[in-house]
């Protein structure tokens, strides 16, 4: 039996992923030497993978 996540939780997760993606994609654009189409595509893809990893990393650490 699968439980559906609450819409609010899904929205929050999507928002966090989007925030990570924007930050990482901007970082990529800043750090490369020449900006062209291929770099944009590769950067957007890497930022997407990085956003998933960043969220997983944040959720793995707990403060107490």
């Amino acid at each position, binding site marked *: 039996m699968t439980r559906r996540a609450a819409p609010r939780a899904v929205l929050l997760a999507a928002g966090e992923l989007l925030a990570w993606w924007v930050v990482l994609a901007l*970082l990529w*654009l*800043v*750090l490369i*030497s020449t*900006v062209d189409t291929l770099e944009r595509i590769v950067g957007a893809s890497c930022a997407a993978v990085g956003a998933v990893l960043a969220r997983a*990393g944040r959720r*793995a*650490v*707990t*403060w*107490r």
Partner: protein
Amino acid sequence: MAVNGWILAATIELGGGGAAALWGVATGPPARRVIAQNMTTSAVCPALLLLAQGYGRPSYVDLALLLALLGPVGTLVFARLLGDDLAGQQPSAWALTWTAAGLGAAVVLALCVAGSPGRATVKLLVIGALLISGNLVASRALAGGFRGVRGG
């Protein structure tokens, strides 16, 4: 190539800060050595930035970026592996830490002013932020400031 002010500043930085860090790492009790090991990043990274500017090779800045990223990570590994040995000591040298942070900030600001504004400026600021925040986080970890963090 003639020696310019940037290369001279890098030499002074390496000769002073780098040598002091090397001496601190090689002598004294473990608590002092981990602090000196942590300070090595703060001493060498601004020197690499100055050298990149002095030689007119912007791509050399990547070395400083890597060092600013990996140096604090290395210190965190030391802080974890030496956790038992350093348990009662909580090594810290906050005056030195903030001095090093100020030095990094001064170098980054000088390079930003010297260059034309653009993506390179943002990259320099990113490196400076990584260097200073990484240094502060690693210093706090050495001083036992993150004992409450679990998981991962």
